[in-house]
């Protein structure tokens, strides 16, 4: 199963999104929050993201979901800091973080490969709310 890392500037947001997506996911689904700084401040930390990606990877790759611009910078830096092998198995989605994570968790849980899980996350942009 593709693992999922949720990168937010807010630890609460990352944890909450993982909880919500976890409701829709199968038991073994990795959903790892990487929110906020080590000291609890608001922000993103590439090393925490890196550790989360390693934790989320069970061999089928990792989808990285990000909230705001600077989270993308930290996530991309985290990928650059990773082993080439893991790096090639990780993808940052250009998708709304909450909506994309929930949709991706369903796709990952049913065993979809990374490309499809990324597509599902990015397709969440088109989900209509009303």
């Amino acid at each position, binding site marked *: 199963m593709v693992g999922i890392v949720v990168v937010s*500037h807010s630890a609460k947001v990352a944890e909450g999104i993982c909880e919500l997506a976890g409701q829709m996911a199968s038991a073994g689904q990795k959903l790892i929050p990487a929110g906020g*700084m*080590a000291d609890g*401040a*608001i*922000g*993103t*930390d*590439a*090393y*925490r993201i890196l550790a989360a990606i390693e934790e989320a990877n069970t061999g089928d790759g990792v989808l990285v979901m990000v909230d*705001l*611009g*600077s989270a993308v*910078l*930290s996530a*991309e*830096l985290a990928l650059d800091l990773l082993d080439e092998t893991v790096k090639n198995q990780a993808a940052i989605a250009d998708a709304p973080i909450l909506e994309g994570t929930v949709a991706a968790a369903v796709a990952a849980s049913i065993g979809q490969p990374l490309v499809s899980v990324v597509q599902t996350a990015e397709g969440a942009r088109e989900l209509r709310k009303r």
Partner: protein
Amino acid sequence: MANVIAAIEALADVIIAKKEFLTELDAAIGDADHGINMARGFEAVRAKLAAANPEDIGGVLKLVGMTLISTVGGASGPLYGTAFMRAAVVTQGKAILDAATIAQMLSAAIGGIKDRGKAVRGEKTMLDALEPAYEAFIQAMDKGESLSKSLQAATKAAADGVEYTKTIIATKGRASYLGERSIGHQDAGATSTYLMLSALTAFAQEQSQAV
């Protein structure tokens, strides 16, 4: 090595001293944390440097870069972090900070920031201070100016770059949410770049006078 560490400490001093100023700049067109972010980062850098014993300039800069990456938190974290990491690469094995090395460092830093942030000059970012500073530095060096004078020229160009950021629209980073309303405000990241360059310049001047 000691003077490189001392130079970094000079950067830390100015950033920590200007914490509130930088945060206020970011409050106007961003999320009011640039000073907080940078000061947290450089407090951590100070602590790390006190505990570590880097072998060369590259080792110092790598430590700075890694520490900024894990403690700054904002966009400036991965950006300055990458800048210092790239500068570390070109100073591996080096122990003396001469003009040529500084030029290489600045160039590597700019490359790192551009790769990471995908911005170009004119987008109201730190690049609007750093790139003109680098160019002025090179130009002064080419004219045969001293390191100290060349750094002065670089700092002057960075200051002008900060002024320039007041006149343009932010198209990268959080200030881009404001669109045209970002005009009239100076960029916080360009300002922290300027502050670090000016601290480095002052430090180099003291060093040259001491010699």
